[in-house]
């Protein structure tokens, strides 16, 4: 090994053997971003204008100057509090991930200064000699110089679930393929309990230079794109800010040209900004999203990034991994062939029995071989665990056979004990068979039983007879052909086929004491009796076919991207419905019509299976063509880079792409995808880190429920926004009319804030609980550039129709309050200047009574309160109509969403508290209101509801009509 000094030198040169963590934004930057994001800028401007106005007024000695100071402080507080809230929400969802960050092996056994030492793996340097044993994580990229029974699980790197043996032979040019290199962070497996694999190797790469380090840096190189909902919210913020700024500036100009003082015009501008900005909305959206995230977590979708909740709903392509996501990630016996007949086995997750015909003697013989010629064992102490869930020591195929035998025969370990094993040759890649010799459990039968399994063609070579219905029959050409047909058929299903044969050793030649020697092979290994074939596959999860068909009806294209063989991939794709039963690939058509592949019209083939090698030679245009022309696509044998290319290809079609993956190799694609979905159980930490969402049960079907939730929240956010925007007009109109018609101000800025951040908050969150109006899984995913969250119809309907209606209702209440106190509407017009004159303490009302300034102000507050109450009452109606966009309320049901009622009651309760409880606190500008004024706007509330029902009725009656196009949002 190296000397410590040399190692220290290299360590200083190369740096520690650890992955550089991805650069994270400092917390303070994240916080400041929240402070200036969304509407915050507008509100900061508002606050600033307030303080400027305060400064000027205080210099002029205006008595009410402090109102502006307070308002500025309140606005700043609103920004800061909503910012803190958003930051907190963000931080909460990021923290879920903190637990996933440990992935580096802690200690490594290294030879330094000629001695074995335990050192932290971070200290390893190139040139170090390390020793590894079964169960260890490999501490760096190493070239093996000694290996015994060493297998590595490269699944996190390449996606191949099959453990691969490692030796010190150089077998391939490609470092990923050669046998003498083991990679950082992969696991060295315990091959069997008797033979723990061990290996010694030299470190050739450390830290970021390792293969995994390179993939990780590939992942961090992929930019973080904005989520679709973030784009939608930005779009919405732009619309609202645009409206606010343009109306603000327009009325500033109007005010100045109407000879208002510039200072007054600035104060109007503040009012207009505050009225236009839905202060509480972004917080509401965050809450709605996190409610959905919670609901999804219950359904096993853990969302890391809140906004990803909706992304899943707008997903139009899912690039799914095969192993573990679509399949159960365990080899299972799928078919059997004996007595010249293929039998299917049950491959479901919870199998307890097998139903194929087990009466044949051949089956008895086959089952014996399956049981005995097997080195896999259950770990002890699992008697009460269902068979399929028990932990097994042994490789995947042997595990499958062990469980299969246990399900049918029961107590495999007991059978093995009764049929004591005398000799064994484990499977190796040169002879491709496994053999063992046993005593039989029949005390009268003194013969030994030789059992063998292995690659079918190799096994067949060693046989001279074949068992049919328990009888040994000569293996003639006819039988051999039957075998070939069965073998091809099972292989064509993408299944791994094993052949089984046996031989009872004659008692006379092999007496009790015969010394079996596996090195010299002093026993026959040919002229055996062929018994049957078993084929295994990693079977699809039982819920997947249904989930895939749901995706299909939801307009989502499911593409399989796997590192596995094309044949296996295609077989699984067919069995889960990614390739539907009647679709053909170009190759299938060519085979059916018996013409060369080139002559097939590519348009005829709905399905396509693309090999990684083909993909490598494709241009972007060719890939695009494939993605557009084929609706059912399987990519097999793909590398991490290719996964990335496929995702980018899909994104070029304007698709919102979801990618599932579990391995480190998937992390670049997970990051690149619009939504990366990592597997919670099988997923590597790198994958989880790169993903936006984690499937806790690794089940593809959970994605579908996620899609449903995502679509629902999009619809519901639309409703929330429509609800919130409506009252903005009712808050804005007072200012505009105040400026134009010079009436006493109908509603104050503080009062507006009490609506936006008080009465309206709970109802708008309540809309997130609304049930879907129709089967949202039967429509196409939204087009990310055409189906906007806030579209023209929504804005126009909310602003110019319901909003105006609300304003009219609220103004009626305003005029009522003033008129009943002696100020008739015509007196109010043009009254503003005298009304607001602090020195004018004997203004005459319509009846000749004289009012002091404060008496007028108090009346003005009553006006605010009446206006506020009217908006609240009409917002109740608005809330009820927003439950649906198309259906009648009676179809949707008024009581299905109980949270809406909580919202309505909270709204009214808050209004009552503000009005009667806090009516005496002058700073809040509320006054106790006469009871009848609560009902003034009621007819308009009813009108809102009736009007919206009519709108919905026409939309339902005349789909596609002018009305539908202009009124459906």
């Amino acid at each position, binding site marked *: 090994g190296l000397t410590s000094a040399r190692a220290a030198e290299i360590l200083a040169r190369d740096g520690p053997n650890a992955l550089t963590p991805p650069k994270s934004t400092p917390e303070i930057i994240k916080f400041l971003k929240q402070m200036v994001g969304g509407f915050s800028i507008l509100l900061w401007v508002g606050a600033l204008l307030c303080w400027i106005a305060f400064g000027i007024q205080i210099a002029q000695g205006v008595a009410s100057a402090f109102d502006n100071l307070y308002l500025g402080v309140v606005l700043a507080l609103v920004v800061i509090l909503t910012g803190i809230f958003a930051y907190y929400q963000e931080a909460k969802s990021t923290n879920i991930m903190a637990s996933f960050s440990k992935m580096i092996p802690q200690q490594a056994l290294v030879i330094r200064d000629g001695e074995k030492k335990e050192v932290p793996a971070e200290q390893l340097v190139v040139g170090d000699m390390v020793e590894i044993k079964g169960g260890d994580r490999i501490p760096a990229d190493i070239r093996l110089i000694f290996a015994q029974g060493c297998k590595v699980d490269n699944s996190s790197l390449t996606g191949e679930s099959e453990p691969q043996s490692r030796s010190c032979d150089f077998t391939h040019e490609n470092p990923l393929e050669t046998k003498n290199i083991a990679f950082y962070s992969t696991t060295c497996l315990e091959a069997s309990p008797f033979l723990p694999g061990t290996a010694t190797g030299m470190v050739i790469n450390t830290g970021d230079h390792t293969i995994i380090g390179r993939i990780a840096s590939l992942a961090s190189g992929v930019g973080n794109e904005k989520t679709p909902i973030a784009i939608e919210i930005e779009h919405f913020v732009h619309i609202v800010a645009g409206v606010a700024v343009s109306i603000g500036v327009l009325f500033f100009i109007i005010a100045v040209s109407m000879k208002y003082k510039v200072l007054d015009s600035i104060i109007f501008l503040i009012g207009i900004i505050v009225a236009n900005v839905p202060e509480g909305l972004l917080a509401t959206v965050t809450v709605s999203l996190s409610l959905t995230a919670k609901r999804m977590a219950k359904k096993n979708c853990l969302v890391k990034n809140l906004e990803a909740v909706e992304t899943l709903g707008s997903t139009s392509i899912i690039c799914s991994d095969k192993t573990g996501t679509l399949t159960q990630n365990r080899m299972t016996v799928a078919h059997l062939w004996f007595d010249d007949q293929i039998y299917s086995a049950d491959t479901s997750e919870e199998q307890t029995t097998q139903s194929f015909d087990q009466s044949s003697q051949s089956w008895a013989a086959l089952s014996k071989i399956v049981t005995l010629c097997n080195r896999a064992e259950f770990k002890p102490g699992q008697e009460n665990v269902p068979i399929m869930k028990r932990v097994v020591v042994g490789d995947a195929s042997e595990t499958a056979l062990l469980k299969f035998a246990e399900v049918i025969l029961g107590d495999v370990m007991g059978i093995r004990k009764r049929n004591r094993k005398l000799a064994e040759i484990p499977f190796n890649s040169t002879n491709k068979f496994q053999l063992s010799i046993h005593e039989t459990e029949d005390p009268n039968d003194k013969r030994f039983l030789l059992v063998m399994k292995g690659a079918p063609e190799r096994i067949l070579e060693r046989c001279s007879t074949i068992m049919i219905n328990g009888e040994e029959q000569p293996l003639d050409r006819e039988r051999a052909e039957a075998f070939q047909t069965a073998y091809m058929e099972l292989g064509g299903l993408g299944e791994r086929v094993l052949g089984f044969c046996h031989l009872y050793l004659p008692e006379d030649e092999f007496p009790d004491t015969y010394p079996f020697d596996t090195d010299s092979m002093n026993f026959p290994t040919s002229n055996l009796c062929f018994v049957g074939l078993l084929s295994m596959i990693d079977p699809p999860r039982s819920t997947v076919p249904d989930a895939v068909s749901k995706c299909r009806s939801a307009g989502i294209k499911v593409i399989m991207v796997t590192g596995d063989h094309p044949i296996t991939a295609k077989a699984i794709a067919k069995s889960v419905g990614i390739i539907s039963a009647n679709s053909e690939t170009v190759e299938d058509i060519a085979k059916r019509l018996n013409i060369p592949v080139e002559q097939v019209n590519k348009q005829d083939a709905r399905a396509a299976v693309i090999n990684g090698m083909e993909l490598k030679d494709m241009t*972007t245009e060719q890939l695009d063509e494939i993605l557009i022309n084929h609706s059912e696509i399987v990519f097999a044998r793909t590398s991490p880079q290719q996964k990335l290319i496929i995702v980018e290809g899909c994104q*070029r079609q304007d698709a919102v792409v979801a990618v599932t993956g579990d391995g480190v190799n998937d992390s670049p694609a997970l990051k690149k995808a619009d939504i990366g979905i990592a597997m919670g159980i099988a997923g590597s930490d790198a994958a989880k880190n790169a993903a936006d969402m984690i499937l806790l049960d690794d089940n593809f079907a959970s994605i579908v429920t996620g899609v449903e939730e995502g679509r629902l929240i999009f619809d519901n956010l639309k409703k929330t926004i429509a609800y919130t925007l409506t009252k903005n007009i009712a808050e804005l109109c007072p200012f505009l009319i105040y400026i134009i018609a010079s009436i006493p101000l109908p509603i104050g800025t503080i009062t507006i804030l009490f609506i936006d951040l008080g009465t309206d908050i709970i109802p708008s969150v309540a809309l997130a609980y609304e049930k879907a109006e129709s089967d949202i899984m039967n429509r196409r995913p939204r087009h990310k550039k055409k189906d906007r969250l806030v579209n023209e119809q929504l804005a126009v309907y909310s602003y*110019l*129709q319901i909003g*105006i*209606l609300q304003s*009219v209702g609220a*103004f*009626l209440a305003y*005029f*009522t309050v003033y*008129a*009943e*106190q*002696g100020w*008739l*509407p015509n007196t109010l017009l043009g009254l503003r200047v005298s009304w607001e004159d602090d*020195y004018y*303490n*004997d203004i*005459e*009302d*319509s*009846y*000749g*009574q*004289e*009012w*002091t*300034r*404060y*008496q007028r102000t*108090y*009346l003005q507050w*009553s006006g605010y309160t009446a206006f506020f109450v009217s908006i609240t009452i009409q917002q109740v109606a608005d809330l009820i109509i927003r439950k649906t966009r198309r259906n009648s309320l009676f179809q949707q049901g008024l009581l299905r969403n109980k949270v809406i009622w909580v919202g309505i009651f909270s709204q009214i309760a808050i209004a009552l508290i503000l009005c009667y409880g806090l009516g005496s606190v*002058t700073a809040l500008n509320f006054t106790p209101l*006469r009871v009848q004024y609560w009902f003034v706007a009621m*007819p308009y509330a009813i*009108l809102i509801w009736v009007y919206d029902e009519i709108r919905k009725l026409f939309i339902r009656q005349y789909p596609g009509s*002018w009305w539908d196009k*202009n009124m459906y949002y």
Partner: protein
Amino acid sequence: KHKEKMGKKTLADVIQEMKTFLWNSEKRECMGRTAQSWGLILLFYLILYMFLAGMFSFCIYGLLLTLSPYTPTYRDRVSPPGVMIRPYLHGFTIAFNVSEPSTWTPYVNSMHHFLQAYDDNIQEEKNIECPAGQYFVQDGAESKEKKACQFKRSQLQNCSGIEDPTFGYSTGQPCILLKMNRIIGYRPGYGTPVSVNCAIQKGNESALKSVDFYPGNGTFDLMYYPYYGKLTHVNYTSPLVALHFTDVKKNDFVPIQCRLNGEGIVNNVTNDRFLGRIIFTLSIGM
């Protein structure tokens, strides 16, 4: 390369896009709508808003029907009465220099202007003499025109501006007229006339040595109440109390608070400094 193509639009593109948005000659659309589409949508909004305007007018009409033209439905916000003074130019600081007539002429003019309605001949012509010391309650139909009681300018004696047309401003002994706000049906003092007193608001008490009140020791006689509203009580003139500041500290700002005193009068609300009281500053230069 592809990225670049997809990337930022140039300014020319944006302008072109805007132009197409404003007028798309291909589809004959202005701002995304054809002429017909615009016509329809404008018609729709015309009808909708006309309906809303109609409904609103109807509601306002209904509201007005419920109101009496003589008495407002509620008078709780306007009572108890506030107080105002004359002369009133802008603000409540009355500052002038005796030796410079131009500093006090505006005040004098304001007083003369205000008192025109109180000229003795006008009062005698329009209003009647009422028995003093009791409310002048006029029964009968609400719509019947009500009589008003005479309040003659001459009752203000030294502050009437008749003998001294400068209301004492030329001698540094200014008159200020105090007026109680009108409230329909209000009977101040519940039978005992409301009186006025004045004092230094804060600071040296000696700055204000003497004030004369006219008429009758600074009271508002009961006969001027109640007020019946401007529709029927056409010639009503608010009774006044003149404050004659005969000895005020000169060359200084003297803050003075005058209060109404009487039953039912509120004169100590912090928020409303004109409710039952008034604060003004005298600054008389010599």
